[in-house]
């Protein structure tokens, strides 16, 4: 036994000594592979309609895009969409000449709706698959976990979760978010809510951090605009029997209800509300109708408004960009794909647009490998986008200070069993003061 100990200690001491003597001076650097490719620089400072290079087919060292999607676990329904979107995207971009003339390769991993699995996959994608940047998940926890690792490994990471912290205290210069977050949605929705629905509110949220952040931010902005939140009701996130938590909890003066429920609670929540306060106007948080067959809702959907960053259905929103986007994805006007599966377009657009944003950034900054990330990041910071096939969701900006995208927020309403765009909240009403400034953050290596 002591012999074992002795040998181990000796080995470790030798190893440590050898290492210490050869240790590089700047810890935290990773080896970067410089790739040579045909880098064509197209000058696009503020991206308008991109010029598709139909003449050149993509050649040269591929650009490897890592994807960490929620393919299993509680968020499994969103991973399906992300995966479908990114594959259509790859085919289109490659057919049109790739990014900077280089073809793109996808490496898709599952985070199992679990943050530490997501973080493990992040490292795997960077170290084993050698990816150039990573598209992230809708599961905020994975985004929070991956953010510091993104910086450590000099890998740009695109988040699609909605926890506000990802583009504030929990974020850093290597994390970008091409989707709306809770604070943005609440701020935008509060304008609409106060002007068009009512001034006395009750808030009903699922009892976990997503729900609480909506509860807090909604109250802040409603009160800022002179309204009142008379009750804040929480419903357990696991059990889905919502009724007992609502009975007797909503004061009579309440004019409307703000709803933030996770997937499993949506139907029971609407059912319960229909019993307790039938026909009361309801403002649902982003994508609250994810995966729900709205034609089955009947009375449950009376006066139901849904905040969304992108309308699920086409009618009323038939811009050229949208029509083409949805055609490429192969979805019908309700957002159902050819397999009959529901496509989460309110998140799918973010995956689509972030890759186009990277393309614009890469081509305008002359990026060739991760060593050029500083130039790319600076190109992305403050980039503006206009509605186009590449950005079908609409005009938007990618704010420099916190890397958060700000855009139009849509309010859908349920009419005759289907959602349609009822109102749009302009970008200016969604913008809040940034709490961080990543532009002052130093780059890694």
């Amino acid at each position: 036994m002591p012999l074992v100990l002795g040998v181990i200690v000796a080995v470790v001491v030798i190893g440590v000594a050898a290492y210490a003597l050869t240790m590089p001076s700047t810890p935290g650097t990773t080896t970067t592979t410089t790739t040579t490719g045909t880098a064509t620089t197209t000058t696009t400072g503020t991206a308008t309609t991109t010029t598709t290079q139909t003449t050149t087919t993509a050649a040269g060292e591929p650009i490897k895009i890592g994807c960490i999607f929620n393919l299993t676990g509680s968020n499994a329904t969103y991973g399906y969409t992300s995966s479908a979107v990114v594959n259509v995207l790859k085919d289109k971009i490659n057919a049109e000449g790739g990014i900077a003339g280089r073809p793109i390769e996808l490496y898709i991993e599952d985070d199992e709706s679990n943050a530490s699995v997501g973080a493990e996959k992040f490292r795997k994608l960077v170290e084993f698959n050698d990816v150039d940047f990573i598209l992230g998940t809708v599961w905020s926890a994975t985004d929070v976990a991956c953010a510091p690792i993104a910086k450590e490994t000099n890998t740009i990471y695109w988040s699609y979760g909605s926890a506000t912290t990802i583009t504030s205290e929990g974020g850093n210069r290597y994390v970008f978010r091409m989707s709306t977050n809770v604070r943005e949605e609440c701020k935008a929705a509060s304008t609409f809510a106060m002007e068009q629905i009512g001034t006395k509110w009750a808030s009903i949220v699922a009892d976990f951090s997503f729900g609480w952040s909506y509860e807090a931010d909604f109250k802040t902005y409603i009160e800022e605009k002179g309204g009142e939140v008379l009750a804040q009701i929480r419903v357990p996130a696991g059990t889905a029997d919502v009724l007992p938590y609502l009975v007797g909890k909503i004061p009579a003066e309440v004019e409307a209800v703000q709803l933030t429920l996770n997937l499993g609670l949506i139907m029971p929540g609407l059912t319960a509300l229909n019993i307790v306060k039938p026909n009361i106007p309801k403002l649902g948080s982003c994508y609250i109708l994810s995966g729900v067959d709205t034609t089955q809702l009947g009375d449950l959907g009376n006066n139901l408004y849904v905040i969304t960053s992108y309308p699920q259905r086409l009618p009323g929103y038939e811009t050229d960009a949208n029509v083409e986007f949805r055609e490429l994805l192969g979805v019908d006007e309700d957002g159902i794909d050819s397999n009959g599966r529901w496509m989460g377009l309110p998140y799918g657009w973010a995956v689509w647009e972030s890759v186009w944003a990277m393309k614009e950034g890469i081509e305008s900054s002359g990026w060739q490998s991760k060593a050029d990330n500083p130039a790319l990041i600076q190109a992305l910071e403050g980039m503006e986008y206009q509605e186009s096939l590449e950005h079908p969701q609409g005009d938007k900006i990618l704010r420099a200070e916190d890397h958060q995208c700000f855009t139009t927020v849509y309010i859908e309403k349920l009419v005759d069993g289907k959602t349609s765009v009822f109102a749009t909240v302009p970008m200016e009403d969604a913008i809040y003061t940034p709490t961080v400034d990543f532009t002052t953050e130093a780059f890694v290596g």
Partner: protein
Amino acid sequence: MICGKKTLLEIIVLIILALGIPILGTSIGGLVSLMSTALIYGVYAMGYDILYGFTHQTSYGHSLYFGLGAYGFLISVRSLNLGFFAALLVGIILVTIFAIAIGLFTVRLSESYFVITTIILVWIGYYLAMNMVNITGGDDGLSMTVPPISLGFIEFSIYDPLVSYFTFFIFFVISLVILKRLVSSHLGKLFIAIRTNPNRVEFLGYNLFYGKFIAYVVSAIFTGLAGALLAITFRYASASYFAINYSVLPIIFCVMGGAGTLWGGFLGAIIYLLFLYFVSASWTNYLIIFGIILIAIVKFAPKGILGTLKKKIKVD
């Protein structure tokens, strides 16, 4: 000091881990990270094996200590600004206190009651962790900047990949050595007696409760250590560390690799991580394979991989 065949084998494996992996790692990307996580899960599995393999107590709620260890470290670093070792100590002390308090009452329970009570306890821990968002970050979790490992005269940064690997390796070795000594000590013999025939232990005048209790607390401590190490490698902890799937993992590791062998859990962890790294991408429902493996192991190789090999080779 004559080295048995088994000890020689162990030394060889440790040398491969210490030197071979980092060297291979320079040409195979991701290998070092995979093995780092394997070493951490190895510590978890070894700790759990003391309870499961050596005293036949099946806890289905050990992720309670996993989460406590992780948060003990994370909160010490974030809010109390403690150094690396101090934070680690806090995590371990926290786990020890809870393990003693809980163990005093639960270890006495009979087998099935014990299993179910540990399930209830871990769910309580999970719900509380989800609820105390200001402290734990809830299910979104919290990130941290890991303080450097300061040994007085020299400082190492965990952000260096090799430092990271060796840190986890050293903790693995320390855990292995401590647990091996425990197992071969007088107390360890008591453990084995408990698993062989608990009734006779009492007839022989030994304190059954004492043995089981010590095993419980020891296993909780190493579980907490593993939790802290996982928080270190991901610079992150969330309420998900308390979730039931982290309770099931060590059971899977130990059963696959071989319960009661200490090394078995490490092997089980490596197999799991290989699946996670290479199978998950092509087949996201890879967990079905683990379900089938578990049933197959019970039926055909109940001693797990190492257990069956041990029997075949008959080493000491």
